[in-house]
C-alpha cells in the first residue's frame, strides 16, 4: 500500500467507526468525549478541556420508528436519525452534548433530548451585524464554558483555550489546502476519500488530524497532476453521504472540486482571528464572519453568488445541491440560488439526501442524466 493509501485508509476507518475512535481516545487519555451537534459550536472549549469533541450528524440507513414518538414525519432526515439513535442510547457514553439551535428543528430537539448525557444548549444571535450580538454570544459561551467545567470537572483556562484556538485554526487552514489538492488530483482523492478526510475530522483530536492531512497533502502533491477526463462539480447542502451515494459520483466521474457542505467546508470557512480581546470574544466574532450558510442570517443572500464564484474559480462544470430532506433553512435558500444559477447559465442539479434510504437508483438516474447533459 502506498503512503497515500495508508493515510486514506486510516482516515476512512476512523470515519466509519466513531465509537472505536472514542473508545481508543478514552483508553489512551483516561478522559471522555463530548458530543457536538450541528452546525456550529465552540468546539475549541471542549478541546481545551482535554475532551474529545465528537460530531453528531445522524447515521445512514436506520429505519425510523422510536423517533416518530417525538418528531413529526416532516422533521429533517438527519434529526430523525439523531433522535432514533438517542432513543437507543447511542450517545449515552458522552460526558455532555453541546447543542446550538440555529433552526427550528434543532430548537425543538434541544428541548427533548432523550439520552442520558447532560445537554448544554446555547443560542447564536441572528442579528449578526451588531456589536451587541458579539456581547450576547460571549455571554452564551460563558454559560457553555461554565456548564462544561461543571460536567467535566475541569477548569478551562484562557491559556488552554488560546492553544486550542491555534490548533483549530491550523486544522482549518490545512483542510482548505486539502480542498484545493483534492480538486487537482481527483484520480487520487475521489469523492469517497475526500469525504472521509472531512468526516474523520469530527472524531479525532484536530492536531492529530492536521498531522495526517499535512502528510497526505505532501505525498499527493509530489505526484504529477493528470488531466481529468470526467466532469467537475461544486456541491452544496448540509451533507453528502453515505459512501453509496458518493460511489455514484465516482462511477460517473464527477470530481468534487469544492464544496459548501455544512458538514465539510462550512466548518473550516472562518477562523478565530488573533487580537487583543479575550478568546471567548474572538470566538464569538467568528460567527459574525461566517457567510454563505443557510442558518446564518444573510439579508443579502450571498450564497448563490458565492457558489457561482466557486464554480468559476475552480473551472467546475456545474453545482450539485444536496438537499437534506425536510431541512427548511436549506429549502428556503434554494429558490434564490436556483434563480441565480439559471440567470448566470450555471448548470445545476438538486438531489435529495435522505439518511433513511438504502436504495440509490433514483439519484443514480438523476446523476447519470445530469452528466449526459453537461
Amino acid at each position, binding site marked *: 500500500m502506498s503512503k497515500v493509501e495508508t493515510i486514506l485508509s486510516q482516515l476512512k476507518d476512523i470515519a466509519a467507526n466513531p465509537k472505536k475512535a472514542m473508545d481508543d481516545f478514552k483508553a489512551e487519555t483516561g478522559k471522555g468525549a463530548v458530543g457536538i451537534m450541528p452546525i456550529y459550536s465552540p468546539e475549541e472549549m471542549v478541546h481545551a478541556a482535554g475532551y474529545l469533541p465528537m460530531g453528531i450528524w445522524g447515521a445512514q440507513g436506520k429505519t425510523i420508528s422510536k423517533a416518530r414518538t417525538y418528531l413529526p414525519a416532516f422533521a429533517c432526515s438527519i434529526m430523525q436519525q439523531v433522535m432514533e439513535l438517542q432513543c437507543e442510547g447511542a450517545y449515552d457514553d458522552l460526558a455532555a452534548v453541546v447543542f446550538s439551535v440555529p433552526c427550528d428543528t434543532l430548537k425543538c430537539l434541544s428541548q427533548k433530548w432523550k439520552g442520558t448525557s447532560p445537554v448544554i444548549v446555547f443560542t447564536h444571535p441572528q442579528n449578526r451585524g451588531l456589536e451587541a450580538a458579539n456581547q450576547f454570544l460571549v455571554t452564551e459561551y460563558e454559560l457553555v464554558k461554565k456548564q462544561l467545567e461543571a460536567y467535566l470537572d475541569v477548569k478551562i483556562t484562557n491559556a488552554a483555550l488560546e492553544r486550542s484556538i491555534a490548533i483549530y485554526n491550523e486544522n482549518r487552514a490545512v483542510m482548505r489546502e486539502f480542498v484545493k489538492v483534492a480538486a487537482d488530483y481527483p484520480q487520487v482523492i475521489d469523492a469517497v476519500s475526500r469525504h472521509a478526510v472531512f468526516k474523520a475530522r469530527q472524531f479525532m483530536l484536530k492536531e492529530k488530524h492536521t498531522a495526517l492531512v499535512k502528510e497526505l497533502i505532501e505525498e499527493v502533491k509530489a505526484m504529477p497532476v493528470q488531466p481529468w477526463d470526467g466532469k467537475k462539480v461544486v456541491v452544496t447542502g448540509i451533507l453528502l453521504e453515505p459512501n453509496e451515494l458518493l460511489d455514484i459520483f465516482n462511477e460517473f466521474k464527477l470530481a468534487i472540486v469544492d464544496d459548501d457542505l455544512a458538514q465539510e467546508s462550512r466548518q473550516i470557512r472562518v477562523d478565530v482571528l488573533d487580537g487583543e480581546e479575550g478568546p471567548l470574544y474572538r470566538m464569538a466574532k467568528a460567527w459574525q464572519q461566517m457567510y454563505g450558510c443557510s442558518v446564518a442570517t444573510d439579508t443579502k443572500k450571498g450564497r448563490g453568488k458565492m457558489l457561482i464564484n466557486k464554480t468559476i474559480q475552480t473551472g467546475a462544470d456545474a453545482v450539485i445541491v444536496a438537499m437534506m430532506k425536510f431541512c427548511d433553512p436549506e429549502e428556503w435558500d434554494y429558490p434564490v440560488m436556483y434563480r441565480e444559477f439559471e440567470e448566470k447559465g450555471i448548470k445545476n442539479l438538486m438531489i435529495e439526501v435522505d439518511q433513511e*434510504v438504502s436504495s440509490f*437508483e*433514483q439519484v443514480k*438516474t*438523476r446523476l*447519470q*442524466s445530469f452528466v*449526459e*447533459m453537461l
Partner: protein
Amino acid sequence: MYTLGIDVGSASSKAVILKDGKDIVAAEVVQIGTGSTGPQRALEKVIETSGLKKEDISYTVATGYGRFAFKDADKQVSEISCHAKGIYFLVPTARTIIDIGGQDAKAIRLDNNGGIKQFFMNDKCAAGTGRFLEVMARVLETTLDKMAELDEQATDTAPISSTCTVFAESEVISQLSNGESRNNIIKGVHLSVASRACGLAYRGGLEKDVVMTGGVAQNAGVVRAVAGVLKTDVIVAPNPQTTGALGAALFAYEAAQKN
C-alpha cells in the same frame, strides 16, 4: 445499419429497432418491467416483428429503471436523455416534455437543438405517476384503459389531493361513500396526477411546445387535465410508451457510428 433501444421500465419493457438512425422498423411493448421476463420478451418480440436476426443489430442501448440489470446492451443511457432524444426526433418543436411513467414523473426542458437545459423528477412517491392511477382504478372498480372515457362523461371534478397515494386513496373511498359520481372522482384523480406533473414542469420554466410522453400520456383524461392546468395545448407523442426506447436506439446509432 440496425440499432436497438430497449427501455426497461418499472411497469413495462419497450423495445425499438431503428434503421440507419431514421426509420423505425419495429416497436414493441410488454406490460411487465424490470426483474421479470419482460425485457427479454420485448427484445424477442421486436426482433420477430422486424423480421431481422439478433446478429443484424449493430449496437444496443438500454435505458430505464432496469438499464443496468439488462445484460445484452452495449451501453446504458439514462431515461431522461433518451426521452429527450426520442421526443426531439419525433417532435422537433418540443421545448417542454412531461413524461409520466409507471413509477415516476419527469419534466424536461429542451433547448433549440434538442439539448437538455434542465430536468426535474418527482421524489420517491407514487403520487402523480402511473402507479397512482392503477391504485385508483382498482378502488374505483375500473381499468386504466377505461378511465379516459369515464372522465369524459364527468359533470364536475371531485377534489382529490395530490400529495400522497395512500391519503388520496382514502379520499376516493370517502368520496364514493358520500355518493359522489365515479366519473367525477376519476376526473379529480386525473387532475391530481396532472397537478403533480405540472408542478415539475413549472419548475423548469414552461416553454412551448409542450409534449407529453410515457405510458400515462395514453390517458386522454390526464392529457386534458395537464392542458387545463398549464392553459396551453399539449401534444401527445406518437406511441408515447416507446419514446424512451426510440431515444435509446438513436443513441445506439450515434455510438455505432463512432465505433
